[in-house]
């Protein structure tokens, strides 16, 4: 079996831990492959895995449609599923992941909790090409503006959606460049001294927001709501410098991917629900449950060693 990520990030290490634990339990072998974040590299690694002849592949598609040729070639030979980011038009058997739009709305709710009086909100994100990141961002905006549930909506990056008490002053895209992410956070704080909340939607964004707030002397003054479970993010929540985060449970991505692939290899199609989407629930982590959450995460990581 092979699990293919979409870049190199601690998020994927947790996913790898879940995949390996499940593989050990089932007595099979799994390899986790990390492309460099470009579609070209992911395509090459998928082609090479197909040639090598693994029994099944679970991939986080770097493009919702552009990689369909190579995905379909794989799907013709072995069970292929997508996880984390889907390619709905391909011949993949199913998709495993959180509903990013719903997870984004949870982030929006946490922003409302953190800043009940409203104010300016800035969103920091690595990329907007992938469907999952677009949905996640839109969920945050729609929740803040009290819009109804419609994941097909898309506010342009340059727009300033405003409604009720909240104003989303901008979405800062850093192209997965961490130093750029930190610079964006710092510059936003400089440009908007009255910023109420920073929302970091890729795993490394909340730590960068935290650093920016610290160097601007605004710890606690500007609220931070994050996404994913970077160690720094969790430490920040424990210390009270970050309000909360939403975990999409990458451990389950890895574990579920291996479980489903294994069943498919044994010819068991009953693991696939109607509609072909296996939803992994996301989880809000605040100060009250962060200690338990970290402990569980630590145990899972150690189980991988």
């Amino acid at each position, binding site marked *: 079996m092979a699990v293919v990520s979409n870049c*190199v990030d601690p998020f994927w290490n947790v996913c790898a831990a879940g995949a390996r634990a499940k593989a050990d339990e089932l007595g099979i072998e799994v*390899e*986790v*492959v*990390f*492309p460099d*974040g*470009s*579609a*070209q590299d992911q*395509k*090459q*690694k998928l*082609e*090479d*895995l*197909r*040639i*090598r*002849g693994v029994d099944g592949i679970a991939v986080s598609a*770097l*493009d919702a*449609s*552009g*990689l369909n*040729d190579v995905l379909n070639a794989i799907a013709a030979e072995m069970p292929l599923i997508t996880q984390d980011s889907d390619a709905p038009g391909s011949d993949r058997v199913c998709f495993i992941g959180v509903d990013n739009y719903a997870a984004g709305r949870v982030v929006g709710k946490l922003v409302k909790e953190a800043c009940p009086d409203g104010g300016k909100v800035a969103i920091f994100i690595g*990329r*907007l*090409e992938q469907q999952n990141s677009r949905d996640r961002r839109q969920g945050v905006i729609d929740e803040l503006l009290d819009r109804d549930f419609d994941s097909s909506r898309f506010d342009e*990056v340059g727009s300033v959606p405003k409604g009720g008490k909240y104003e989303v002053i901008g979405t800062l*895209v850093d*192209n997965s460049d961490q130093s750029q992410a930190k610079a964006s956070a710092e510059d936003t704080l400089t440009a908007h001294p009255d910023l109420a909340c920073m929302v970091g939607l890729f795993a490394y964004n909340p730590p960068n927001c935290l650093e920016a707030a610290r160097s601007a002397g605004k710890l606690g003054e500007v609220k931070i709501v994050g996404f994913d479970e970077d160690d720094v993010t969790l430490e920040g929540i424990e210390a009270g410098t970050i309000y909360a985060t939403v975990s999409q449970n990458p451990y389950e991505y890895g574990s579920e991917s291996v479980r489903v692939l294994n069943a498919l290899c044994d010819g068991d199609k009953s693991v696939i629900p109607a509609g072909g989407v296996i939803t992994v629930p996301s989880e809000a982590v605040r100060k009250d449950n962060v200690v338990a959450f970290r402990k569980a995460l630590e145990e899972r990581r150690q189980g991988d060693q």
Partner: protein
Amino acid sequence: MSSTTTPKVIAIILLLIAISAFTGMANDRFFAPANLENLLQRTSLFGLLGIGAAFVIITGGIDLSIGSVVGLSATALPWMLTEVGLPIPVALLIVLAGSALIGLIHGLLITRFSLQPFVVTLCGLLIYRGLGRQLVLDQTQSFGQEFDGLRTLSIGRPFAIAGVQISTPSLILLGVALLSGLVLSRTVYGRALFALGRNPEAARFAGLPVKRLTAAAYVGCSTLAGLGGVLFALDINSIQPVSMGSFYELYAIAAAVLGGCSLRGGEGSILGVVVGAAVMRVLYNSIVLLGIPSQLEFAIVGGVLLIGALFDEAFRRFVDARRLSRSRRAAPPAPSAP
């Protein structure tokens, strides 16, 4: 091919054979036709960039903008076809002419304004990446379903040799390589390019049009990068303006240097560059086929490149020593000092 580059080319071919044999022994699927087809395709695409880099390196220059030119042309082509609705020949012409123009600007800045190639092309690396991203506001580009005819330019496989299908880019590479090889070894321009790389002062005093020759090398390099971008775009059909082609200048330079180009200028062979590009692609392929952890990827590629450079130097010394002893034997004994 000059006498100094021949040993380097032989060394790089031996390295390619060694890596292939090692991988093939560990996993026999390495030699499966489908894998060889993939490798040929990748080598063809990266080989084009390597040849472009070689032209510039032979003049003693460098082009760091190759990857960004790849990104810009790979972004611009689908954008012009699907968003603007330009006819295919017009869009292709604009991309290739635009790439050539980029090279011309580099050449003029370097020769007329005496800016250093490193600086000029480093600025280019940043500028073209930014322009490509702004052009489509970072949106992923693709050709959709309507341009399958055009895509055969990159994914078409017109014929097979011994069960291995040969893709169109391989034929393009073959054509470009033959043409470049002929230009370098058989024309006045080519010889002048080597002379200029070895000693620009001497070349100028000898009456060679140094500025024009240098500019032409940059035009060739950027045009090949633009062509590469077109083929990469058609091959992958999912172009992220921010990441498409990033680092490719380093792959191109590595292929050129592995293949016998000296960064001091004046040396290089097209065959060597193409084999150098193949070594890089085979390495990446082996890492997946052998199940080596992704984390080690760069370390392994870097390590093998270093071994290649050392092996190359050792081989060159060995050949030089033999040549020297042979010529000593052939020549009359030197008069001994009193």
